[in-house]
């Protein structure tokens, strides 16, 4: 009957071995009563190891093979049966490695904060830089292609940095700020320099535009003074008045002119013609100007105000 209960392919030897070893452990426990705080610590560790093993879907035998112990010892560990003295650092490190846990947690659960503290300090001392970089990589598993992240002041409270603020390593935030300070400073300096250069360029451009406009206006006015004369087109009062006011028109001789589109001009507008009537080919035409000026009083001032356009061939 007993053999019928066994699963296929399994011998009775492991079961018997299990029962024998468990009996031996229990018998040891019968005589060695541990202090309450040690029993509680072993029970805490037992619960944690059991949950971690189930989370990783490991059987007791698989875990036992990984850490080089028997199945009964794992069972005893999970039931809090192992004596406190047997749970040394080496065993805890092996268990932590097999379960992918931090040995620090196991030591703390076992109620040895001093040992955990010394281990932590030692590892920080030995692998301080390495640990810092590895922690940073865990904080930034994927670097986002965002140039703003280099500007710490701007990007400090973004999602990437949020867990950094809560992080346990003392002064890590400050160290990061310190590390990025030079980069930020140089970036700011570059930014200020660029801004200054841009401003200077803009001012130069404005000056250039203003000067060009002034010069062109000046030379245009000079050339128009030499090249053109103004003829009254018709007996329009304001044109005559304009001619009287302008020194050009007052001294200009009336020459044969090419009549240009006179009929197309409105009354009161001024037609300007070139002065070299001898050379017909060189004689060019015509320009005309004039902006419509509805106000009678303003019509005389259009040249002096510079509100004209010269068309030259």
């Amino acid at each position, binding site marked *: 009957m007993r053999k019928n209960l066994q*699963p296929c392919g399994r011998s009775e030897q492991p*079961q018997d071995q299990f029962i024998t070893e468990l009996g031996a452990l229990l018998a040891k426990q019968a005589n060695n009563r541990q202090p309450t705080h040690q029993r509680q610590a072993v029970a805490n560790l037992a619960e944690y190891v059991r949950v971690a093993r189930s989370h990783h879907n490991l059987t007791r035998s698989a875990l036992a093979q990984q850490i080089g112990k028997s199945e009964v010892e794992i069972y005893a560990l999970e039931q809090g049966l192992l004596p406190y003295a047997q749970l040394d650092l080496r065993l805890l490190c092996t268990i932590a490695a097999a379960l992918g846990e931090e040995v620090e947690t196991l030591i703390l659960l076992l109620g040895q904060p001093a040992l955990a503290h010394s281990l932590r300090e030692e590892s920080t001392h030995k692998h301080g830089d390495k640990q810092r970089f590895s922690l940073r990589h865990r904080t930034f598993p994927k670097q986002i292609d965002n140039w703003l992240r280099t500007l710490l002041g701007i990007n400090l409270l973004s999602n990437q940095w949020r867990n950094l603020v809560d992080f346990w390593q003392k002064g890590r935030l400050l160290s990061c700020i310190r590390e990025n300070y030079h980069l930020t400073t140089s970036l700011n300096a570059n930014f200020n320099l660029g801004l200054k250069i841009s401003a200077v360029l803009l001012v130069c451009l404005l000056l250039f535009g203003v000067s060009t406009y002034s010069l062109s206006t000046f030379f245009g006015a000079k050339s128009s003074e030499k090249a053109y004369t103004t003829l009254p087109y018709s007996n329009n009062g304001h044109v005559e008045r304009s001619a009287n006011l302008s020194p050009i028109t007052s001294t200009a001789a009336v020459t044969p002119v090419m009549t240009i589109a006179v009929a197309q001009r409105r009354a009161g507008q001024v037609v300007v013609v070139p002065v070299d009537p001898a050379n017909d080919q060189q004689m060019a035409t015509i320009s005309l100007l004039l902006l419509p000026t509805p106000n009678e009083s303003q019509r005389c001032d259009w040249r002096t105000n510079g509100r004209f356009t010269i068309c030259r061939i």
Partner: protein
Amino acid sequence: MSSTDLKIVAPWPPIASLRNTQSFHVDTLELLRLFQHGVGLEKTEAFSALYNRYCQGMWEYILRQVDGAEAEAKDIFGQVWLVALEELHTFHYRLDTLADDPLRSWLFRCAANRIKQFYREQHTQTPLELVEGFLWARLSGEDTTLYELFAPAVKNKAGSLLYAATRHLTPEQKVILRLRYTGSMSFAEIGAYLDKSEGAVKVQHHRLLKKLRTLLEESACQEG
């Protein structure tokens, strides 16, 4: 298979740690008295003899009850003997009962109760609210006896959920939650280890509880 292979059998009954084989033939009542009042090696021998006397029958009974599931049978077997180790000190062997061997009856009753509990845990669906309540009570340092009494599966479920949720946290956050939950350590103790004030640990713990609630809700949505 040769005839010599058939002769190789496991030694039975297994000798746990019995050095004095003469004690195996001692009366049960006498063994119990030795266990309860003896000291040192005498006590160990007495327990070994009792264990060797009942372990075979109990193992077969448990294995049959759980339909040959060996891992579960080992669990229950070990738990029954752990209870025996704790409670045999106060066991009263009554000669006036109908049972031939009251100790045997008591041990098998323990095994039967544990098997029932095993099936209850297997077939009972623990609601997430109950698990959360247990988890919060334990993280707040409150008494969780009622939860464990009326919903035995809640402890394992809560432990698994917490472990799965804390996998995504930073090492320090893991330390805080696990020490608080599994180690039942106070905020001051955790703060002393982490070089932080008690208030800082409390604040971080409060944030972690919020985060944990979100993670649990997400996991519940994924399961649902």
